[in-house]
């Protein structure tokens, strides 16, 4: 079983009990935990952070990046088509929204060109509700762009099935990052009802431990095929479907 972590961060702006400032702090932690692949994002400056992330993961097997978006209206970052070329060259597999940090409104009229490109090119958008995109806001985005591929991190440890399952049921490309979904029996319950194809292993490192959700998945009462899907194959499939050209 190969673990492919969908939620790893590092950077100088991270407010963690045990800060992880550089990619050099991430790599040994991944190795010690037995994580083969990870999607990493940098909690940092946005324009400079995107550039630094690409430099950090260059040449490092198993690491893939997510770039942070801001509205194109200010011309600070490349337009979607230009960005796609840069993404392909730099192992960048998705986009994330952080309106809390970047100070914009996560509405359709603000992000329309990004959302259109994401749908057309099957680029996953990484949504963390802790970054300022509420579930209500996400619902509005999906209502207009129902084919959008979303990796949803609901940043709340309270049981969330009543909140999250309708997204999976309604929208074909919404995936749940399990970082904060560790209710006893939840894996078995949701995989039993909707299949294992919607769940992604995520650690939330460095805020959380790699091994907590790993052990939960490894010993869940589901088939080995389902475990492998959740551990990493689902995320690999999402990334393989990105159309850069």
């Amino acid at each position, binding site marked *: 079983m190969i673990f492919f972590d969908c939620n790893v961060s590092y950077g100088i702006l991270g407010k963690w009990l045990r800060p992880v400032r550089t990619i050099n702090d991430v790599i040994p932690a991944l190795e010690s935990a037995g994580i083969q692949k990870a999607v990493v994002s940098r909690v940092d400056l946005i324009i400079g952070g995107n550039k630094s992330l690409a430099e950090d993961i260059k040449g490092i097997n198993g690491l893939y990046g997510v770039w942070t978006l801001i509205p194109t209206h200010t011309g600070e970052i490349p337009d979607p088509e230009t960005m796609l070329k840069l993404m392909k060259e730099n192992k960048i597999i998705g986009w994330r929204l952080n309106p809390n940090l970047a100070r914009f409104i996560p509405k359709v009229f603000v992000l329309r060109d990004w959302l259109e490109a994401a749908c057309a090119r099957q680029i996953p958008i990484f949504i963390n509700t802790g970054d300022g995109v509420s579930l209500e806001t996400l619902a509005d985005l999906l209502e207009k762009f129902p084919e959008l591929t979303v990796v949803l991190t609901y940043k709340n440890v309270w049981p969330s099935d009543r909140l999250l399952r309708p997204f999976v049921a309604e929208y074909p490309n919404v995936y749940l990052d399990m970082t904060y979904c560790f209710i006893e029996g*939840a894996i078995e319950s949701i995989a039993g009802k909707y299949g294992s194809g919607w769940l992604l292993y995520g650690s939330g490192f460095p805020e959380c431990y790699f091994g907590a959700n790993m052990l939960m998945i490894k010993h869940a009462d589901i088939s080995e095929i389902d475990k492998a899907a959740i551990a990493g194959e689902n995320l690999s499939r999402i990334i393989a479907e990105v159309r850069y050209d």
Partner: protein
Amino acid sequence: MINSNSQLAQEFWEKGRLTHCPILDFHAHMGEDPLSYLPRYSAEAMLQTMNTCNTILTCFCGFESLAAPAAGELKDLEVVRKYPDRFKAYHSVFSMGLHPEEDLERVAQNPDAFVGFKFLCDYNNVTLSDSRHDPYWKYADENRLLVLSHTWGGSRFNGPEEVEKIVSQYPNLIFLAGHSLHGDWGKAAELAGKYENLYLELTAVLDDRGALELFIEKGLSQKLLFGTDLPWFSTHHGIGAVLSAEMTDEERRNIFYRNGARILSRFGWFPSLNVPN
């Protein structure tokens, strides 16, 4: 693998449960929770989880007992009577509707079922030290019981100041700070180091990487107790977090069962654990 520096982690990884490293769970509930969908809320479902992880004993307070002790406690007692070696109960202290005579009588009549009391002051807007709670504290102190309380940093109802008032006044009870004064980790460590009768319980601590390491660095591995909030949080998730944190396997054993066995040894019904290393 989880943690290449830990033999215990590698064994748990392969087997999921270890006979030579049992689990004692000091923070659990049971039954339907109107606030949440919980797939495994029955006693039998929780027992299945316990068997999967080799949790040998779980101390719980049913959700119904937290809001309506008169009805809920009977259900909790029924579970303990059915599975006396696997479950023990905390009697709820429902601060918004206290009936101390009735509650203490129920505890007195069932000394092999109740390990002590459960306080949830943040949810009832009553402080731990409120004089209406005095009969419970006195009874727990006189009978050397365990008291599990929801505790949270910054709370005026069950924050550090309130906890200190209780542990300093009632030295014979064991105070289990549920959630370890969540967020106020430094103060939690300070108080646990200062008061012999104060233990830090780890439910909802284990998803904050770093808090556990802070406690260990302060030399508190013998003052920490494992807990899951079952049927909320996955037991394997909690075990995986402890296995991932920076500490020795001996310190992990303290958390998983040694500290718990030590404080449960005050009850005549608790058997001595014969655990080979």
